């Protein structure tokens, strides 16, 4: 490799946005790839479980529209990883639907490669039986029953399918779940870049403008790989990348900063050097990649837990605030009786009462548990086996909290300040991550399916 390879990450997450100024400046630098990762497990298990996005359709359409039009105009491939957030088939299809609309409106006809990484239950059960699945942290060994419980299971693929798509001549690649860095490492690796540099530059730019100052929201970041180093700079002409931000980036959301696991190896950054090349560009060198002898992909899966209904109210009465813990217990007893007559049993629901203002965020770990308060935010949270049970329990709970007596009660017409009508919020299905494991693969393409999109 003698020609530098330039990668443009448009944003930390597709739909979080970027400025057109930064994007156009990035395009003028003639990148070899325009890409954006769509994924995160941070918003929790609901999005994978339900197969829905945590960004808006309008925001994805705007970001993807600019990327595809820019890529097509300049002959630069555009790749989206972990489409729709969780990278399940439903979320990939949602993204493809937006892409179709963009192409129709702009009169574009890109060659589109679709990569799917949602797994069938049968395939994962077979891997469980073969002893090829292990926990990724403090979670139980995976069982076939856990797999059966799951709504959706995705595998976090490495760079190989992206490389296949690029080799196939795709203009646009829409992919299911993959590691954030694989999206960006794929192209430089296939062009023969140093693996340590390729994975490290990918890891730094995948969060977009996290490495850019001033912090004014998401934006484009450019990584350029040379023979023995790479550089990081913002797309936006008025912003800058700094050694502090770039060097600190491997801390973010990683359990350890020096070793970052990928499917076929580990990026090691403990011997890295960082230098401020000019006001807005950082030079990095010394990253290493240690290949592993097994190819492993992370599996993520979410199972349904039930249906949630919530209710928020304020409490200002000082007498009630003073005895709130006892009052909650009194209400719990009354609610159990009131829903019992409806045929709802204790095992059909859980009622959680969060007292915002009084240790709701940290619970038993709260260091200032006894600080005085004059106002409480009550959040009643019912998780029911069915939607009907969830609604029924919440409705009884609301009434109980509003109108149950307590010792010394003066506010006998109502205990709560209810901010809204309607007061009960039906959140819908609730999920839990029940697969958070690694799976051994015989071949990097084993967990992957590819297709062409017919536009």
């Amino acid at each position, binding site marked *: 490799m003698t020609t530098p390879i330039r990668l443009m990450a448009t944003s930390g997450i597709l739909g979080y946005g970027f400025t057109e100024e930064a994007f156009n400046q990035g395009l003028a630098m003639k990148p070899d790839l325009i890409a954006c990762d769509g994924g995160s*497990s*941070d*918003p*929790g*298990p*609901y999005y994978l479980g339900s197969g829905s996005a945590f960004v808006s359709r309008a925001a994805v359409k705007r970001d993807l529209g600019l990327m595809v039009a820019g890529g097509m105009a300049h002959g630069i491939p555009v790749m989206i990883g972990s489409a729709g957030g969780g990278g399940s088939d439903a979320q990939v299809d949602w993204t493809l639907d937006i892409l179709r609309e963009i192409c129709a409106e702009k009169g574009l006809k890109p060659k589109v490669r679709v990569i799917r990484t949602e797994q069938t239950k049968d395939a994962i059960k077979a891997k469980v039986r073969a002893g090829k699945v292990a926990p*990724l*942290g*403090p*979670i139980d060994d995976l069982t076939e029953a856990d797999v059966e419980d799951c709504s959706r299971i995705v595998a976090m693929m490495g760079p190989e399918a992206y490389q296949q798509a690029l080799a196939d001549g795709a203009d646009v690649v829409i992919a299911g779940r993959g590691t954030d860095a694989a999206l960006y490492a794929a192209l430089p690796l296939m062009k023969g870049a140093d693996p340590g540099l390729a994975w490290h530059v990918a890891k730094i730019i995948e969060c977009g403008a996290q490495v850019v100052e001033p912090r004014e929201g998401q934006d484009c970041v450019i990584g350029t790989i040379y023979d023995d180093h790479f550089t990081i700079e913002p797309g936006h002409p008025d912003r800058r990348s700094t050694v*502090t931000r770039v*060097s*600190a980036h491997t*801390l*973010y*959301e*990683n*359990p*350890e*900063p*020096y070793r970052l696991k990928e499917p076929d190896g580990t990026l090691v950054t403990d011997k*890295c050097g*960082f230098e401020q090349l000019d006001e807005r560009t950082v030079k990095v060198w010394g990253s290493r990649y240690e290949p592993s002898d097994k190819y492993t992909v992370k599996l993520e899966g979410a199972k349904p*837990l039930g249906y949630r209904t919530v209710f928020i109210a304020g409490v200002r009465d000082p007498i009630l605030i003073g005895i709130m813990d006892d009052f909650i217990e009194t209400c719990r007893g009354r609610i159990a009786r009131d829903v019992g007559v409806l045929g709802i049993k204790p095992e059909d629901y*859980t009622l*959680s009462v*969060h007292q915002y203002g009084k240790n*709701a*965020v*940290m*619970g*038993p*770990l709260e*260091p200032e548990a006894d600080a005085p308060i004059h106002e409480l935010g009550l959040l009643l949270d019912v*998780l029911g086996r069915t939607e009907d049970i969830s609604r029924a329990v919440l409705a009884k709970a609301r009434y109980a909290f509003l109108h149950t007596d307590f010792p010394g009660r003066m506010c006998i017409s109502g205990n709560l300040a209810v901010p809204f009508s309607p007061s009960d919020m039906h959140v819908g299905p*609730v*999920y*839990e*991550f029940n697969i*958070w494991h690694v799976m051994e693969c015989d071949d990097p393409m084993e967990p992957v399916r590819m297709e062409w999109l017919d536009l």
Partner: protein
Amino acid sequence: MAKLRDIARVVRGKNAGALYLTLDVMFEDDETYRKVRDCGAINPRAIAPLYGVTDNEVAIIPFDMAKAIKITVPRRVRSGSAGDTDVYGAQQHVPLMNLEVPVS
């Protein structure tokens, strides 16, 4: 003695995946960073009770390049599961802010 909140530039927490919480303490200047790193006050026995975990579940990794100390502990409740109160793990840094270290 000083509380970390008075001598650090950043004290932050965030999920590292759904099963771990990772906390970063970052310093403005190298001298303060090295004093805190070397004084031994940030150790598993001091951190474990703040986060309701056992000593051997606490990982502490100094990161000289960023003048930062990283602390990773298992989450009490899996992110977003029933009983979780902080899906992103972004507001669990407060006990660490208040940790006292023998540095002025």
